[in-house]
């Protein structure tokens, strides 16, 4: 087997890269862009995303080639000594005031008479809210192993989307999809960090393996992974609102900027999700949204947990808190006044037919968290001691959010999932789905569901390995798809088998597939997201935070969540998943903001900041978990609600509004000193 180390660009931006390599020792070789056919892996932006950059360098650290050899240490040393030259260009790092050439995707929509409603408003408020770049902190750095077995290419890679990986490899290496076998390896918790980037690493390993004729392994070091692979996109959301004398929203003029770094093939999805989320909680009769995915010459930036929705919820919730301050009202009061209810619509779509439980969630959350009393007492403390000189500084806030479990993308492959199940004569069930790369907790849930429907033992249910299920197309396995889409398909196939079971002889098979409605199929053509709210799971989260007087470090004291996610199949699994996600989401709020210009491995290590002994109390309540009906996703809920709640609690504790996340202890101390 050959090991491979990546030759990386030292330039942020340039054209016509040339890589100079001294004579390599025996057994070592180099593979560069010129050794491969010109092909872009993803049709992203104008030039697409290449396997190795050559004509255009888009960010510092972009892969330009590989050094292959029998010893990984020597490969690293040789790759580090490669000389890179190019026609250097001025990098485009600015993204909040962008040029038209930086726009990767633009979505705009308008509903209602905005100017008329602004004219009728008694209060106007305009603020900008910023969200930083976060690392996914997945368990193992990126890597891939590729080898040829006669005419078949085998690729072992930790990817959330094996089906897409196979399709991309087929295009890049001019191979039939039938000749490629993708073996998805263990991933741990990825938080959407392995949606598409592993495809680039896998393509590099596969190309190297094809040229060298030997198995090739690429495995990034943690530092390499941290510095050069995809992170959560940063955003700046500007909200101008107009409201009546009671605080009811009349008009919203929103500009969402999502910085996607050098490129991201899922830019439209990020933009749609953000635009959907920002108008999905509160009712407003006139809305205008301009949402942009903006390129800059930094590492690729993209999804994290909830693909763009986090940015939007953070901004709208922070804005509602500001609005409450403007009216000298309780934030909960202002939110209750504006919460979206059944029959109301967002963006001119038909009135929401499902019961929107936000009102109930909001009320229950206030009760369980003792929010009104705590909020009032912390306000009182702050009024008496505005400089926070006398000791404990605390804040509490609550936010609302939802996850849809569906994609808005018009890319049909994003939304195609399929499951095939076969019940044999020994009453053993075999489930075939590429989604079987999901966690053990998910598989336990699926087993339980199938066993209940078919009245068979859970031990008699097994899943076919994903590499043997290529004939069944599959979209990406994100946090919510397993418990929503795949869960539904497994139920469907099992019910279909159960129906036939006593009429036909065993073995019996059933197949189910799904495809979400395309954006263009929306009757109004205005707002595709509104339809999907009918299948959403809803959540309210309260966070109580204390600021360490000495270091300024924010310490989460307690988290309360009230969730309506339909039927809960396994309460223990649901609680475990939510508690783990809650901790990850809290860790993000106190993490280091990744600065592409100066980041180092120490920044990665500094993010291990939420220790077991700092664990907050986590209280989770489900609304009617035993009801009949479909199960819905819950994995993303902490990611969409906690950053906003954490930020708002911090705002109350500080008595200041920094309008950005994350905030570190040092920055908080400076803000307190400044006040």
């Amino acid at each position, binding site marked *: 087997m050959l090991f491979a180390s990546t030759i990386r660009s030292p330039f942020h931006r340039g054209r016509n890269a040339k890589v100079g390599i001294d004579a390599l020792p025996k057994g070592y070789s180099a593979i560069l862009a010129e050794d491969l056919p010109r092909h872009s892996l993803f049709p992203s932006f104008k030039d697409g995303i290449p396997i190795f950059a050559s004509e255009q360098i888009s960010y510092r650290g972009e892969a330009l080639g590989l050094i292959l050899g029998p010893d990984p240490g020597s490969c690293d040393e040789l790759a580090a000594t490669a000389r890179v030259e190019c026609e250097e260009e001025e990098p485009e790092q600015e993204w909040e005031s962008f040029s038209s050439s930086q726009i990767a995707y633009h979505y705009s929509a308008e509903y209602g008479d905005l100017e008329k409603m602004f004219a009728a408003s008694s209060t106007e408020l305009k603020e900008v809210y910023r969200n930083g770049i976060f690392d996914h902190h997945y368990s193992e750095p990126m890597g891939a192993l590729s080898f040829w077995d006669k005419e078949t290419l085998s690729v072992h890679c930790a990817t959330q989307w094996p089906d897409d990986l196979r399709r991309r490899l087929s295009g890049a290496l001019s191979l039939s999809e039938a000749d490629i076998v993708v073996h998805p390896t*263990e991933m*741990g918790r990825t938080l959407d960090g392995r949606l598409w980037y592993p495809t680039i690493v896998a393509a590099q390993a596969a190309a190297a393996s094809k040229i060298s004729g030997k198995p090739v392994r690429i495995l990034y070091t943690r530092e390499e992974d941290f510095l050069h692979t995809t992170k959560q996109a940063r955003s700046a959301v500007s909200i101008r609102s107009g409201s009546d004398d009671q605080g009811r929203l009349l008009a919203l003029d929103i500009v969402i900027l999502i910085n996607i770094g050098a490129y991201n093939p899922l830019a439209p999805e990020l933009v749609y999700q953000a635009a959907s989320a920002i108008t999905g909680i509160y009712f407003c009769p006139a809305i205008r949204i301009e949402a942009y995915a903006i390129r800059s010459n930094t590492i690729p930036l993209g999804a994290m947990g909830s693909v763009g929705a986090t940015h939007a919820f953070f901004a709208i919730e922070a804005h509602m808190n500001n609005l409450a301050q403007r009216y000298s009202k309780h934030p909960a009061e202002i939110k209750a006044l504006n919460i979206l209810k059944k029959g109301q619509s967002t963006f001119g779509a038909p009135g929401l037919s499902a019961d929107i439980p936000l009102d109930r969630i909001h009320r229950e959350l206030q009760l369980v968290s003792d929010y009104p009393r705590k909020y009032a007492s912390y306000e009182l403390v702050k009024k008496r001691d505005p400089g926070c000189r006398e000791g404990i500084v605390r804040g509490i806030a609550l936010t609302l959010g939802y996850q849809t479990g569906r994609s808005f993308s018009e890319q049909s492959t994003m939304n195609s999932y399929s499951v095939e199940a076969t019940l044999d004569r020994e009453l053993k069930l075999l489930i075939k789905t590429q989604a079987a790369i999901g966690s053990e907790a998910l598989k*336990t849930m699926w087993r339980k569901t199938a066993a209940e429907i078919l009245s068979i033992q859970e031990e008699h249910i097994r899943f076919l390995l994903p590499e043997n299920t290529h004939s069944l197309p599959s979209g990406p396995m994100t946090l919510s798809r397993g418990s929503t889409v795949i869960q539904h398909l497994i139920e469907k196939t099992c019910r279909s088998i159960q129906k036939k079971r006593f009429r036909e002889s065993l073995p019996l098979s059933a197949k189910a597939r799904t495809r979400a409605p395309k954006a263009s199929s929306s009757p109004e053509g205005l707002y595709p997201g509104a339809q999907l709210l009918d299948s959403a799971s809803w959540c309210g989260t309260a966070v109580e935070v204390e600021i360490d007087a000495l270091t300024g470090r924010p310490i989460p004291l307690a988290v309360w969540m009230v969730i309506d996610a339909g039927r809960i199949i396994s309460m223990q699994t649901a609680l475990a998943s939510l*508690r783990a996600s809650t*901790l990850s989401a809290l860790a993000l709020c106190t993490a280091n903001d990744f600065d592409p210009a100066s980041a180092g491995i120490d920044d990665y*290590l500094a993010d291990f900041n939420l220790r*077991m002994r700092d664990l907050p109390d986590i209280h989770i309540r489900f609304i009617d978990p035993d009801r009949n009906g479909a199960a819905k996703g819950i994995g993303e809920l902490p990611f969409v609600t906690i950053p906003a709640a954490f930020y708002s609690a911090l705002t109350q504790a500080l008595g200041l509004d920094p309008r950005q996340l994350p905030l570190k202890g040092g920055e908080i101390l400076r803000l307190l000193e400044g006040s």
Partner: protein
Amino acid sequence: MIIDVTVNGVPRHLKSRSGDRLVDMLRKELKLLSLSPDCLQGRCGKCLVFMDGRIVHSCLVPAFKARATTILTFEAIAKNPEVKDIEKAFQITQTQPCPFCRSAKIMAIFDLLSRIPLPGEEDILEALDMVSCPCSDPLGLIQAVKLAAELRNKRKFSREA
């Protein structure tokens, strides 16, 4: 250089380069893949080993420092009844650490229970803090440690009786 060291009960003469860490040597020379070092700074805890009976981060130990010591990795303790108790506790509490940190978490709990048979909440938190991986439910982990201690004591007590 050659390092003479006893690994999992077997005396070894292992090759090591200057600057190698103990974890590098154990993975490269003996293919002990339960060690999956990540941060190489003693934070992630995925490289825990017993060195002369003390639990250490093998990424922080220079390979030459292991000379004439006794090293135990997860591979050696995996069949130990104490480890079976921990695995059973994971199963009962439905706590499923990911494959990358599972062995390290078991090592940390194994060490805790061999030092303190009835650990308090503080002891448990301190032990679990040795491994930083966001994969599992923290409350589930605490429950699992308590249950593992219970199972271990029950088994030992009944055997002695």
